[in-house]
């Protein structure tokens, strides 16, 4: 056994000059450097910057005198912000529930060895390729009071049918739910379908041998095993809901009045059309905290389960 030092096994490296050698050594870090700087400045730095602005009296132009929590106080004294939060709660819960129900239902149906599954799946998913602005435009027309869905029902003989949600302050936010579920439920279906394909067949077979009916098998065995999929679906959907801006802008513009405002449209309006930068920054920070409240538990449990696995 001759003890060859491991360095001798790589003569190629020592051939190149010292300078090239050190360049080579730093190259990976050098390549990563721009992203590092950009992340540090444009993500973390900007969060701090926005945080700072939220403690100032900035209106049209930033002003860097700290004034404490006044903007947050104003924010929570503002009726419009409460409307936005309430709308987020309504939209978020119905949007998530709707997408989960339709997504899971369709995935289970599609998992029954369906002919033309690929084709059907691609029909369910195409809305995901569309911009929320396009979706909003389409549904704004479909739900048009007068010429839209309402007229279809009139022509079918339901003369008293009215559907004015788009112009009804109490109902406008629900139109956002309708369009949002239409756009995103197909994607959730795809996630559940992938989850269903990963379920251990032998457990299902064993349950069948024991005489369990198909609904029981789904309810007791398969759906509980999809827990991780539920988890990531809820996380993705709540993320979409909190950020919902383009859909609301295109569908209702936050109206009538500000009846269908969400935190995202609130932030935009106060920062960029009403020149209340301080309040806009405070609302942005609140949005960040809402996202954190959703994402942190998710990341935590992801990390825990990956450590266990």
């Amino acid at each position, binding site marked *: 056994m001759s003890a060859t030092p491991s360095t001798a096994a790589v003569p190629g490296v020592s051939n190149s000059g010292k300078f090239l050698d050190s360049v080579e050594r730093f190259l990976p870090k050098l*390549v990563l450097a721009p*992203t590092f700087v950009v*992340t540090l400045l444009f993500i973390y730095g900007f*969060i701090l*910057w926005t945080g700072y602005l939220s403690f100032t009296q900035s209106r049209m132009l930033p002003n860097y005198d700290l004034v404490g929590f006044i903007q947050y106080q104003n924010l929570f004294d503002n009726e419009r912000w409460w409307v936005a939060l309430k709308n987020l709660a309504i939209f978020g819960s119905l949007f998530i529930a709707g997408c989960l129900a339709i997504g899971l239902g369709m995935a289970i149906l599609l998992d029954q060895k369906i002919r033309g599954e690929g084709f*059907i799946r691609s029909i369910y998913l195409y809305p995901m390729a569309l911009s929320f602005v396009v979706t909003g435009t389409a549904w704004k027309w479909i739900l048009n009071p007068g010429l839209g869905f309402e007229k279809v029902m009139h022509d079918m003989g339901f003369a008293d049918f009215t559907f004015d949600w788009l112009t009804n302050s109490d109902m406008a936010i629900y139109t956002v739910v309708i369009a949002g579920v239409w756009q995103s439920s197909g994607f959730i279906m795809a996630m559940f379908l992938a989850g269903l394909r990963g379920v251990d067949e032998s457990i299902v077979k064993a349950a069948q041998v024991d005489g369990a009916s198909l609904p029981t098998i789904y309810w007791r065995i398969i759906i509980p095993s999809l827990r991780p999929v539920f988890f990531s679906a809820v996380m993705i959907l709540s993320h979409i809901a909190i*950020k919902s801006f383009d859909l609301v802008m295109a569908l209702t513009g936050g109206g009538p009045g500000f009846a269908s405002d969400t935190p995202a449209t609130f932030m*935009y309006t106060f920062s960029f059309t009403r020149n209340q930068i301080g309040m806009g920054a405070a609302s942005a920070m609140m949005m960040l905290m809402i996202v954190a409240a959703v994402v942190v538990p998710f990341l935590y449990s992801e990390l825990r389960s990956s450590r266990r696995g």
Partner: protein
Amino acid sequence: MADTSNTQTQGASRFGRYVIYTLLGLVCLYYLLPLFIMVSTSLKTLDDIRSGNLIALPNEVTFEPWKEAWGSACIGVRCEGMSVYFWNSFRFVVPAVLISTLVGAFNGYVLTMWRFKGSDIFFSALMIGCFIPFQVVLLPMARTLGELGISNSIAGLIFVHVVYGVAFTTLFFRNYYVTIPDELVKAAKIDGAGFLRIFWRIILPISTPIIVVSIIWQFTQIWNDFLFGVVFSSGDRQPVTVALNNLVNTSTGVIGYNVDMAAAIIAALPTLFVYIVAGKYFVRGLTAGSVKG
């Protein structure tokens, strides 16, 4: 006895199949109906729209709404249709997609094959960037673009989309390269191949699928973006999504629902085309991206 129960369950299961296929078909209708309504409305005359109804086919097909939407509809003060904004979008989307994909590929390569102390922490820090609501960077970014002299410009939009797209592309490439066996690269290192050479000769040739996924994902995301477009651009520099919103939501005079629908389809065509041509990769991007949300 056994036979009859067997035929019974067969009958029940055949009935069950009918129910399943009917339900699936109804859901297909639910997803397709809005698209059908858009297309059919865009081919109707305004009289036809007023007299007929939403789900009826056009009485006579007209392409005037399309011509108007593309070339002469008034958006803001200009009456040149969607075409200007459509090309605007291409002008910033294509560079932003290519740059963010390239940077993501290099980042993913370093984060898997050339790990160093702290690289994993950096990756986690970058991933958190995927989760933030972009509202939290809008105000500082508006200021910064002004300082850099690229506010309200195509360059500014490219910059913003690259900065906030790199986290996603890095995630794609990193997760793809993690599955490549280390031996492949180790052997090349022992043979004296350097950083760039290994990337160029070994990594890049096997990266085609993930490059396609990344390009499609980024293209769809950036083309469909509205928030950055509406905040960081104005006038004739705006992307197509913002133009569509302005067209639809500024009601001066007669509202041309048919023109609105034609404009909406124009804005959707590039991403729909990508979806039809490369749907498989699109779905893969969605599920890969779903890790991040």
